[in-house]
C-alpha cells in the first residue's frame, strides 16, 4: 500500500498528445469496425483511415497556433515546432499513401482492414519518433514504425518476391536494431541517462571522445543508417522495394526513410555533441550513399528498382548536411527538413505514376513506359515533372532542396565541405543521366507491346497524383513556402 500511495501521477499534456491519440483512436475504430461489420466494412476502410489521418492534422494546427514548446517528462517527450512540422508531413504522406493503396489493395484482394490498421500503427510510431527526445522512446518509436512495415512489405502473401522482401527487411531491420540497442546501452552506461539533453551534458563533461562514447554513438548511428538505407547498409533496400507491394514501397521509401532521418536529426542536433566523430562519419556515409546509389541506379532496367536506388542516392543527399552539423547547425537542420518535405512529395508522385502505369501494363520494367506520351500524355507530363524535380531542375521543386544543401555547405566552409559539395554536384549530373533514360522511354520510344488503350486513373490514385504534383510545383515556384517550414522547424532547446 505504501508503495502505491507514494506514486505520483505523471503530468500528461493531453493537447500535446492529441495527434497521436487521434491516430490511435482511428486505428482502434478501424479494428472494431472490422470486427463488427466484417466483409461489409471493406468499402469504408480507406475512407476511415484517410479521414482519420486528416483529423490528426487538426490538433497539430491548434498546437502550431498555440506556438509554445511543450515538454513532458523532463524533456523526454517534446512537442516543439520541429516535431509539429514533421508530424504534419508524416500525416500528409500517410494520407497520400492511403490514396495510392486503395485500388491496389482492393484489386489484389489482400487483407484490407488489417493493412490500414498496420499503416496507421506505423504512422503512429513516426509521430512518436518526431517527439521523442529519449533513447527508450526513440527505440520504441522505431520498433513501432518498423514492425508493421516489415509485415506490410510481405503483404502479397502469394508472391515469392513479396515474401523475400518482407523477410529481408525484417532480418536486416532486427540486426540494425540489435546494433543500435548495444550502442544505446553503451551510451546509457557512459552517461547514466536516457534523455537526450542529459546525455548531451554528460558527454560534454567527458569531452565526448573516449573509445566507448565513439563506439556507442557509431552503433546508434549505424542502426539508423540501416533504416535510411545508407551505403554500405543499403543491401536490403532494392530487393525489398521491388518485392513489396508498390504502395508499401512508396511508404518505405518516403515515410519510413523520413522517420529515420528525423531520428538522426534529433540524435545529432540534440544528443550527441561530439562532432569530431559524427562529421567524418556522415561525410563518408553521405558521399558513399550518393555515389553508389547513383552508379547502380544507372544500370537498372526495372522502374521500381531504379526508383529504389534513386531513393538511396537521394538519402545520401539528405545525409550531406549532417556532415556540417557542427559548423552550420541551423542551416544544416533547415536543409534536411526542406529536403525531406520536397523529397516526400516528388517521390510519392513518381511512385503514383508507376502505380498507374503498372495497373495497365502489369509490368515493372522500364520498357513498359515506352511511348507513354502517345496514349497517356497527362501521366507522361506528370512523370516528367517528378523526375525533373528528383534531378533538381527548376521550376520543379527539387532544385530548392539541392539549393538548401549547397547553402549549408557554403555556410560551413572549409576544404571538407567544399569537396563534399563537388561530390554532390557530380552526383546530380549522374542522377540526371538515368532520369533522362526514363524520360526518353516515355517520349521517344515506341509504345510498349503496341497496346494503345488509354490508362484509366481511379479517383483515389488521381487525387494522390494531383496532390503530389501541386505540391512539387508549388515548392519549385514558391520556394518561400517550404523554406518557411524549414525555418520554423527549430528543435526546442528546453531542458538542455
Amino acid at each position: 500500500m505504501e508503495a502505491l500511495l507514494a506514486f505520483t501521477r505523471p503530468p500528461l499534456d493531453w493537447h500535446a498528445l492529441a495527434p497521436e491519440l487521434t491516430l490511435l483512436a482511428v486505428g482502434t475504430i478501424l479494428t472494431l469496425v472490422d470486427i463488427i461489420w466484417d466483409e461489409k466494412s471493406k468499402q469504408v476502410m480507406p475512407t476511415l483511415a484517410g479521414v482519420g489521418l486528416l483529423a490528426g492534422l487538426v490538433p497539430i494546427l491548434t498546437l502550431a497556433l498555440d506556438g509554445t514548446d511543450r515538454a513532458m517528462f523532463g524533456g523526454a517527450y517534446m512537442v516543439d515546432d520541429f516535431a509539429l512540422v514533421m508530424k504534419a508531413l508524416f500525416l500528409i504522406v500517410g494520407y497520400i499513401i492511403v490514396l495510392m493503396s486503395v485500388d491496389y489493395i482492393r484489386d489484389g484482394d489482400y487483407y484490407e482492414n488489417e493493412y490500414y490498421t498496420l499503416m496507421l500503427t506505423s504512422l503512429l510510431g513516426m509521430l512518436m519518433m518526431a517527439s521523442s527526445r529519449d533513447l527508450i522512446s526513440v527505440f520504441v518509436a522505431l520498433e513501432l514504425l518498423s514492425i508493421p512495415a516489415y509485415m506490410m512489405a510481405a503483404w502479397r502473401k502469394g508472391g515469392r518476391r513479396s515474401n523475400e522482401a518482407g523477410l529481408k527487411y525484417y532480418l536486416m531491420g532486427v540486426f540494425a536494431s540489435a546494433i543500435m540497442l548495444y550502442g544505446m546501452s553503451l551510451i546509457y552506461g557512459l552517461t547514466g541517462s536516457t534523455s537526450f539533453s542529459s546525455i548531451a551534458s554528460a558527454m560534454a563533461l567527458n569531452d565526448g571522445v573516449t573509445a566507448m562514447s565513439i563506439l556507442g554513438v557509431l552503433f546508434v548511428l549505424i542502426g539508423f543508417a540501416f533504416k535510411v538505407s545508407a551505403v554500405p547498409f543499403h543491401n536490403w533496400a532494392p530487393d525489398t522495394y521491388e518485392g513489396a507491394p508498390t504502395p508499401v514501397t512508396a511508404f518505405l521509401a518516403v515515410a519510413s526513410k523520413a522517420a529515420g532521418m528525423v531520428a538522426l536529426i534529433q540524435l545529432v542536433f540534440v544528443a550527441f555533441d561530439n562532432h569530431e566523430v559524427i562529421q567524418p562519419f556522415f561525410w563518408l556515409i553521405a558521399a558513399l550513399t550518393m555515389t553508389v546509389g547513383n552508379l547502380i541506379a544507372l544500370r537498372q532496367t526495372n522502374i521500381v528498382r531504379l526508383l529504389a536506388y534513386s531513393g538511396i542516392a537521394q538519402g545520401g543527399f539528405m545525409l550531406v548536411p549532417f556532415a556540417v552539423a557542427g559548423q552550420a547547425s541551423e542551416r544544416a537542420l533547415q536543409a534536411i527538413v526542406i529536403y525531406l518535405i520536397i523529397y516526400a512529395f516528388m517521390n510519392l508522385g513518381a511512385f503514383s505514376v508507376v502505380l498507374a502505369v503498372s495497373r495497365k501494363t502489369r509490368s515493372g520494367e522500364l520498357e513498359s513506359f515506352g511511348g507513354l506520351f502517345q496514349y497517356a500524355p497527362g501521366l507522361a507530363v506528370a512523370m516528367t515533372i517528378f523526375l525533373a524535380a528528383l534531378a533538381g531542375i527548376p521550376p520543379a521543386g527539387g532544385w530548392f532542396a539541392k539549393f538548401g544543401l549547397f547553402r549549408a555547405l557554403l555556410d560551413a566552409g572549409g576544404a571538407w565541405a567544399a569537396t563534399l559539395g563537388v561530390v554532390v554536384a557530380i552526383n546530380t549530373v549522374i542522377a540526371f543521366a538515368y532520369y533522362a533514360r526514363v524520360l526518353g522511354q516515355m517520349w521517344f520510344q515506341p509504345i510498349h507491346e503496341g497496346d494503345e488503350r488509354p490508362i484509366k486513373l481511379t479517383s483515389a490514385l488521381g487525387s494522390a497524383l494531383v496532390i503530389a504534383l501541386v505540391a512539387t510545383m508549388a515548392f519549385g515556384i514558391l520556394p518561400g513556402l517550404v523554406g518557411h517550414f524549414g525555418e520554423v522547424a527549430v528543435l526546442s532547446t528546453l531542458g538542455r
Partner: protein
Amino acid sequence: MTGDPLFHDGVDLVDIGIMGLKVVVAFGFLLVATMFMVWFERKLISDMQNRIGPNVAGPWGLLQTFADGVKFFFKEDLRPENADPLVFRLAPYISAVTAFLSFAIVPVGGVFKDVPGTTGTVNIFGRETFLQVADPPIGILLLLAMSSIAVYGIMLAGWSSGSKYPLIGSVRASAQAISYEAALGMSVVAVVILAGTLSTHDIVAHQAGGINTWFLVTSGVIPFIVFLIAATAELNRPPFDLVEAEQELVGGFHTEYSSIRFALFFLAEFMNVITMSAIMVTLFFGGPAGPIFFGLTWFWPTIWFMSKVMVFLFIFVWFRATLPRLRYDQLMDLGWKVLIPLSLFWLMFISLKELRASNDWNWIATYAAAAGGLLLGGTLLITALRAGDRAYQKDSEDA
C-alpha cells in the same frame, strides 16, 4: 526493514545452520507429503469409484507409495536408441527441481498479526526467523518464473525421447502452459494490487485480520476461481491432462521413461500439486492464519496451514474423479476466450475499486462507469468471438 529478520544483523554460522535446517525440513516434508499424496489420491479415487484401492502394503495400504518407490529404484533404466542422451537424462531433474523451488516461498507457519513485516516469526536457537525457506522481495514472481521453467522438463522429455507420442504430448504441454500462464499471472496480480507487495510473507500478513481480510473475500472470489482453473491446467491435472491423455498418447511425454527417472516425473507432478495448493492457501486463504486455542502458539498456524492445503489436495483429486477431459480446442477456448478476458476485466475492476477508495470518487458514478465498461467490452468481445467463429466456419466450408 523487510525480509527475513534472520539476516538483519549480519550472517553467521548459526544463521547458515538454520537456513540449512529449513531447506532440509522443507524438502523432507515435501517428499513425505508427496508419498502420502499419491496414496491419498489412489485411495480417494478408489472410494469414489467404489473400489478398495491399495490395501496390502502397510496399514490401509499406507506404504504402497514407498514400496513403489523402492521398486522403481531397482528397475532397469531404459533409454531408447534414438533418444538424445544428455537431454533425456536432464529433463526429469528440471521437473523435480522447479517443483521443489516454488515451495521455498510458501510461509508454512508463524503467528501473523495485521502489521506486515514484523510478525509471523518463530524463535529457533535464539534467532527470530520466518517459517519459510526464502522470502525474496519479488516473492510471488518466483512462482511464475518457476512454473515457466517447469515447462522445459516436460518439453525436453518429450523431444529427447525421439518418439512421436512423447513429442506430441510435450508440444501440447507447452502450448497449454503458455496459454494458462497468462490467466494465472493475472489473477496473482489482482492479489498483488490489493496487498501492495510481491513478498509472500507480507501477502499473508495482510490477511491476518480474520476471514473477511482474506484475499479470497477482498478480491471477490473471481481471481481465486481463475487461479484454481489455471493452476489445474498448469499442473496438467485432469480435466486438463491432455499432455498424457492415455487413450491418445500412450503415456504422453513420459512414455519412454522408466525406473527412477519416471519416478522423478511422478514425484514432480505430485510435488507441484502440493506446492500449488500451498500457494493458493497463501494467496487467497490467509496462509497459516487461524485461531490459536491453547498450548504451543507456533503449532496452531502450521496445523491450520496444513488443513487448508489438505482441502485443496482433496479438490484436485475430486476434479480428477469427476470431470471428463477437455478436447484440445475446448481447452484453448476456455483459456483464451474466457479466463484471460475475465481475469483482465477483474483486474481493472479491482484497480478501479482501489482508485475510488484512495481518491474519494463518487461510488455510484464509478460503478456505473465500470458497468458501462463491462457492457461495452463484453459486447465487443462477444462480437469478436462470433466474427471469429463465422470466419472459421466459412474457412472450413471452403476447404
